[in-house]
């Protein structure tokens, strides 16, 4: 079975977010980029399923410029077999989805996995768009994924619960915890990753459907009002009479 795992390159979760002086772009200076944490679930689960099946392949795909290659190599070190980098800045979800759909179709993948969303732009869109472009089901967000032959059993999170869903390949799923324990690269993986194939291809399709006019940071808090612990009950009165939230 052929797995395609789509990864995005995002600022590390500890990053303090700042923007360029005109507030039009994220300020990348000094920022450590990582594989999107949600995508790690997709990657590890694909590798586990391939191992369980004893055959098949896991390909990672990233839409990004050359600076994303260290994280693509990391994905190869974790256990993917080969990689595709679509050489373009990921302008928006629609742009990225077109790239994935095109190369997924070209490669004839059975299972297309990705994280539920990227932790930078938080679109939660790409999986649905890819499914729609390819005319195949999308299960999002999936907390569990098991395969038996060409049939997958997934747990899809819905507000307040979950649905057990069965779909046949090909399908798209976006992944989140507790699907698996994301793996980290070991020494052997790091060594072999250097020579695994990483193909660079050009972008296809239309441009972006949306653009960002300006970024802003959340307004700063006014400062904390401290209530002495021995008068804790006073807090509740403030929440009712001053903040008016209870």
């Amino acid at each position: 079975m052929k797995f395609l795992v789509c990864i995005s390159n995002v600022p590390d979760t500890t990053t303090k977010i700042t923007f360029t002086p005109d507030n039009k772009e994220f300020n990348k200076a000094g920022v450590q980029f990582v594989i999107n944490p949600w995508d790690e679930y997709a990657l590890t689960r694909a590798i586990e399923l391939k191992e369980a099946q004893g055959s098949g392949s896991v390909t990672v795909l990233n839409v990004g410029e050359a600076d994303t290659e260290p994280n693509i190599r990391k994905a190869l070190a974790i256990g993917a077999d080969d990689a595709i980098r679509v050489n373009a800045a990921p302008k928006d979800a629609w742009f990225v989805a077109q790239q994935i759909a095109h190369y997924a179709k070209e490669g004839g993948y059975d299972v297309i996995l990705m994280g539920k969303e990227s932790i930078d732009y938080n679109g939660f869109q790409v999986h649905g768009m890819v499914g729609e472009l390819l005319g195949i089901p999308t299960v999002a967000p999936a907390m569990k994924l098991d395969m038996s032959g060409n049939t997958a059993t997934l747990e899809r999170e819905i507000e307040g619960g979950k649905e057990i869903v069965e779909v046949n390949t090909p399908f798209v799923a976006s992944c989140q915890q507790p699907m698996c324990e994301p793996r980290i690269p070991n020494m052997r993986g790091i060594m072999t990753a250097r020579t695994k194939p990483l193909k660079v291809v050009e972008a296809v399709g239309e441009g972006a459907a949306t653009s960002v006019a300006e970024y802003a940071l959340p307004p700063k808090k006014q400062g904390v009002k401290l209530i002495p612990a021995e008068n804790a009950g006073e807090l509740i009165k403030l929440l009712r009479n001053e903040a008016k939230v209870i």
Partner: protein
Amino acid sequence: MSVLVVVECDKGEVKKSSLEVASYGAQVAQALGTTATAVAVGEATEANLAQLGEQGITKVLFDNEPRLKDFVNGAYTKLIAAAAQQEQSQVIVLANSNIGASVGSRLAVRLKASLATNVVELPKIEGGQFTVKRGAFSGKAFADMVLSGERKIIAVKKNSIEAQHNAGQTAQVEAFSAQLSDADFADAPKQVVMQDQAGGILLPEADKVVSGGRGMKGPENWHLIEELATALGAATACSKPVSDVDWRPHHEHVGQTGITVSPNLYIACGISGAIQHLAGVNSSKVIVVINKDPEAPFFKAADYGIVGDVFEVLPKLTQAVKELG
């Protein structure tokens, strides 16, 4: 032409987040000089749908197909696309829920629309172009996104817009059929399992949240969190380290890699306030922090704070809430 609003229903009731979405759609319709039509998904009743008039909805399309009770991506997408077609809707508004955003992304492709998810404010409308403010960087920032396509789809974040209630207004409920076939139900669930939630309040829908961190010292102490939550009518949540060690289920994990919440009141008990946790809660309207360490970074992001032992403070708070009556 009208604005189409997707309302999610559960056990006959329209979800709170969908009442907000209905109000949002009605206000956009008013700005555009048109009306707002709703299309219902989930388990709905005609009487409750008619009440969407209170949020400014004129007409509700209702497909009485029983299999629409549970979320089916394929069928929901087709139903909403058919409704948009019939109503010639250039703007579709839905909730930024797992259901709304899943369907929204498929619709964006099918209807060739520009899509914005996680939207927190009404759009600025100039000519045919919308600019919407949306959450980005997992709650650490906002982005003003420009939707320039002829069709726009907006997924509204919960608790960002207040639902209007104009008592006495009713919407006209019309039977609607999208001619759904078995193929549209290919991803229908085999089984639906709902969680047992303390007090029956779901975290993603809650407007008050009581959350615990490692400072709670163990799952056996969670009754202190639950008692305060029950007294307040709040949902319970936790920090990442707590769900990582399985003191609490993962769906309660609030933060950058868990869920992002924006309740009116967020009470953090024994949570130090790592940047990843703050990202998940900093759009809450009022934040209360209880921590015995006065240097805990969370105090900098809080409106109210108590420096003290959670095991002593929590019972006092619960008692004080009960005394309010």
